[in-house]
């Protein structure tokens, strides 16, 4: 049986949504674990959920990134187990140095909450191997600090190593400037590590995992969790 931990920090949200999707929609064993109690041992994968850990003080994710839980997450990263960071979880992974780059305040300085289109550009990660490359997903975002930034040299490495997994696009899958909600460099919505077992993304797949809850009737977010569970089984 696949066992996945969802780590809760003070200020996490959507953590219960992730547990619900894993448990009730996918039938995977999922536990909500307080960050101070999290140990790597006994889990096949981990999800860092969204929210506003530590009130986003200093910078989103900066304080949670120093939690001892992240040392255990790093062990799982090194062991090749799947580690997923959603929204604030992505910010925590970046601030912990597990994923490269920075997530700056949105270009319009506002909290943006809406459904967007993202294109899958790498179908070889632990979370996307069930998603054909080029497929456009419809999925919501809800953040104020989601403007991905990195210098040119690092962006070149991200491209070369195929670490840019999701880009904001229009409905047809074109990464045009108008489809970029927050000013992210190169329309980046999500990146992985070199091995592909760590993924961070700003959109919320757990909010798009049941047809009933999607305005378009799609459940595109579920594809990521399905891939994660299948990856562990194999």
């Amino acid at each position, binding site marked *: 049986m696949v066992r996945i931990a969802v780590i809760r920090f003070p200020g996490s949200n959507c953590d219960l949504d992730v547990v619900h999707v894993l448990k009730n929609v996918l039938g995977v064993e999922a536990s909500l674990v307080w960050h101070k109690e999290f140990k790597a041992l006994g889990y096949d994968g981990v999800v860092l959920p969204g929210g506003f850990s530590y009130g986003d003080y200093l910078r989103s994710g900066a304080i949670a990134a120093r939690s001892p839980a992240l040392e255990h997450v790093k062990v799982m990263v090194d062991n090749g187990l799947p580690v997923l960071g959603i929204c604030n979880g992505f910010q925590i992974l970046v*601030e912990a*140095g597990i994923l490269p780059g920075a997530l700056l305040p949105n270009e319009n300085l506002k909290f943006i909450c809406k459904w967007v289109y993202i294109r899958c550009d790498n179908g070889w990660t632990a979370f996307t191997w069930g998603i054909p490359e080029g497929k456009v997903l419809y999925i919501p975002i809800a953040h104020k600090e989601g403007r991905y930034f990195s210098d040119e040299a690092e962006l070149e490495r991200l491209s070369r190593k195929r670490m840019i997994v999701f880009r904001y696009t229009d409905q047809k899958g074109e990464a045009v400037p108008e489809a970029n909600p927050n000013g992210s460099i190169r329309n980046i919505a999500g990146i992985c590590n070199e091995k592909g077992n760590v993924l961070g993304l700003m959109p919320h797949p757990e909010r798009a995992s049941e047809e009933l809850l999607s305005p378009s009737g799609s459940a595109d977010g579920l594809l990521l969790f399905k891939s994660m569970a299948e990856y562990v089984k194999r």
Partner: protein
Amino acid sequence: MKAYTVEIVIENKPAARDPEGETIHRDLILKGGYVNVKAVRTGKYLRMTIEANSPWEAERLAFEMCNSLRIYNPVAHVYRIKVLE
């Protein structure tokens, strides 16, 4: 040991846009007629009280802390430390 006031200012690197600074510059300062102001960058300001034997030791501690705890994100930010007597 003496208590030193240490200021840490963090701002975006020149390559990372600062929309807040740009808006303050364009829509407040220039529209207010202060045309000699050529650029504005916003940042984050932390003022700490650090006990140390000398101002240099206080500065070294602040420097070490900024890096080990990632008070700034080296990908996107620059910072400077100033020790006040």
